[in-house]
């Protein structure tokens, strides 16, 4: 197998990048998920926006920027949604990056706030889930998917991830038990999260005994599609303090698209190109991180994020998993909401789930899922399996700004 290192394996040093000074990320909002919804995406996104406004204690007109992510909003885009919701923002973005949307929305919104293009930006993601939504979304996901993947069994993401999981397990030494340990830990976490759709404990044996869906992917390796919405606000720290809102600060972010196109199959994500830039810019090291929220559409992607974000070396993920505990009170608190695997995957909101949970952790509002003394958290996103691989990756290092008690 050829694994020629690309010239761009590592990104150029990010010395000239500006920081995110003065930016506050605040008001984590979740519209409770349901397995199936008869509502449309507009309802879910509208509910998220309303909750953000209510949570911030501001008037609707004070939100002058909106950033939207949704798969099921069609035929509307963010533009049509604004008329639908009666909004007249001076700044609007639509981010079709699935699981990377939460991080990427932050990057866009933070810069807009810093530049003064908008003062209060509502970042919202939501999708409905009709009984046939998932099939429709999958069959029309992209041109390459339509041309070169869907006709091959129409397995959807399960099939694509099965292939790269198969490859990854054979070449990088992760076993089903390793993946199972992560899933079991996430379920433990989810049992403390009232929003999680999965309410029953999961044992490793149950994980291992589950029925195969698309070898080597079994039932508990798959997320459950559902309806839901997530949101947060981006504004200046000054504004957040004036509104007495607990908030988090942004230490660093990265994003990357179509990384490593020459890899014959995906065994790493774009983080591997940008992780040094991420941590250097933030001035922290992986060891300083108190918790990690990854995009977990499948356990294999969690394993890749451990490696590619630098929590362990490539090929050493099995040892890393075996050496750590991933529950909220474990040695490596991970996907503390339960992640999509245990909360549910509400379409594009799945790309916000980890981000919103990280905000809760850093503002001290995570309730029973709270990681004690959480000060630095990493959120990573991964989205848009286009042909045979996920194309968008992103990550953010957030730090505690003002917690609930401090802000009040």
């Amino acid at each position, binding site marked *: 197998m050829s694994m020629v290192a690309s010239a761009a394996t590592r990104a150029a040093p990010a010395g000239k990048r500006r920081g995110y000074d003065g930016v506050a990320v605040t008001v984590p909002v979740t519209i409770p998920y349901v397995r199936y919804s008869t509502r449309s995406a507009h309802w879910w996104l509208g509910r998220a926006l309303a909750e953000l406004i209510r949570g911030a204690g501001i008037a609707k007109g004070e939100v002058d920027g909106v950033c939207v992510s949704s798969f099921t909003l069609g035929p509307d885009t963010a533009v049509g949604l604004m008329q639908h919701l009666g909004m007249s923002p001076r700044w609007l973005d639509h981010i079709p990056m699935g699981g990377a949307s939460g991080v990427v929305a932050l990057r866009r919104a933070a810069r807009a706030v810093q530049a003064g293009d908008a003062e209060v930006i509502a970042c919202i993601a939501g999708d409905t889930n009709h009984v046939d939504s998932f099939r429709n979304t999958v069959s029309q996901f992209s041109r390459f998917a339509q041309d070169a993947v869907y006709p091959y069994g129409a397995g959807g993401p399960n*099939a694509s991830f099965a292939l790269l999981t198969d490859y990854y397990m054979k070449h990088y030494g992760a076993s089903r038990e390793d993946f199972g340990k992560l899933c079991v830990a996430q379920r433990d976490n989810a049992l403390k999260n009232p929003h999680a759709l999965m309410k029953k404990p999961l044992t490793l044996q149950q994980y291992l005994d589950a029925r195969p869906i698309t070898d080597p992917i079994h039932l508990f390796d798959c997320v459950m599609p559902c309806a839901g919405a997530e949101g947060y606000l981006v504004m200046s720290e000054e504004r957040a303090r004036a509104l007495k809102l607990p908030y988090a600060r942004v230490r660093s972010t990265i994003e990357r698209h179509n990384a490593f196109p020459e890899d014959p*199959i995906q065994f790493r994500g774009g983080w591997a190109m940008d992780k040094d830039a991420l941590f250097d810019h933030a001035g922290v090291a992986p060891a300083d991180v108190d918790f990690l929220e990854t995009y977990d559409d499948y356990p294999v992607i969690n394993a890749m994020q451990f490696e590619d974000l630098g929590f362990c070396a490539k090929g050493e993920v099995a040892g890393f998993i075996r050496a750590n505990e991933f529950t909220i009170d474990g040695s490596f608190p991970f996907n503390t909401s339960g992640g999509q695997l245990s909360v549910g995957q509400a379409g594009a909101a799945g790309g916000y789930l980890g981000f919103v949970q990280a905000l809760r952790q850093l503002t001290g509002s995570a309730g029973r899922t709270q990681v004690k003394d959480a000060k630095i958290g990493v959120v990573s996103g991964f989205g848009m399996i286009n042909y045979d691989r996920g194309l968008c990756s992103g990550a953010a290092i957030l730090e505690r700004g003002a917690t609930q008690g401090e802000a009040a």
Partner: protein
Amino acid sequence: MTEPLVKPKKKNPVLRTRLATLPPVPRSRSALGLTRAAAEGVFEMQVCADCGTVQYPPREVCGSCLSEHVAWKPVDNRGELIATTTLRHSNDLYFRERLPWRVGTVKMAAGPSVVAHVHEDCAEGGTVRLTLKLDRSGQAVLHALPEKDTPNMNDAPQLRESTCDPKFRRVLVTDGKSATGMAVARAMLEAGANAVFLGDASTWKTVPAFDKLVASDPRLQVVELDVTDTDSVDRLAASIGGKVEILVNTADYLRDGGILNRKDVNLARDAMEVNVLGLMRLAQAFGPGMCFRAADGSNNAVAWVNILSIHAHAALPARGAWSASKAAALSLSQTLRAELRGAGVRVMNVFPGPVDEEWEQLTPPPKIAPSGLAKAIVKGLQDGVEDVYVGDIAEELRTRLRENHKAVERELGQ
């Protein structure tokens, strides 16, 4: 090793016949380049004229250097099977009915990685041959096949879905008494057909070779069929329409004559009656039944074969009326293809050069032996292609038509 296909049992007449479903149809226009290659039975991908990159999935421009000069060219079809999975769940009705289904990722020697259907005899990590086939929807898909042929390879259910193998199927040869018809019948029997119905439009005529053939194999059954007679076609369809899984339209009316050297249009009409309206009558009578049985077990109705001529593409003025009838039949076959595609029944057109039979007596060699034509038809069905060009003359004219169709027109008219 692939389990050999077992001869299908007699149908349980009180069970509902499974209706045809199709694998996903939509493709971008670029991706239809694969469909063209698959229909012709060649393995081609986009190759950048400027930087030589072989790319997949098909794109509008070169994904490497952004050149717009990407052309479809034959490329090395070998690759390494680097990952596989077996689907036990699918979002699509067609695949749901056919689970489990094996797919995999092949790293091609030519460069790109492709997702392909994977033959059960392919080992992960091993070398595979990629082939482009038309699936039941009539669109191209990649199949990864073992590096070398394995026993009963074509019997693998997945591959059988993309092919029209005569094995264990029942075939109607519409004119079984012609040299070509008899040869096709023989070839179908050799290929393992369960039954061959031999159409006979002239039961009053004794043809010793035909009688000898019919006596040679109990799988042969003579049926009265005159494609110029709507009633005859309808009666036969009412009798055996539910059994025909492959229809090979061998009926032909070949006579010399152009336009000005004839005083009438009778010959042309007779040719149209057989070659064009005959095809249409057959289609109207047998098409619906074949569509109904297009997903009926391992011996489902799969293919409609028209024996046209290379002169369907370029008239031979010495046989102007006949050439016109073949061109009309080609056109009709395209409509038929569109109409049968909804059920997944394939229309395969065969374009032979001159065939060595009585009406080609004065045609100089090379001529295709009827047995050679029949063999090409069977191979086309086994490969699952849409267009089959048979013989050196057909191949040469096909190439030359692409190069300069006016030159072909001038020279055929000399």
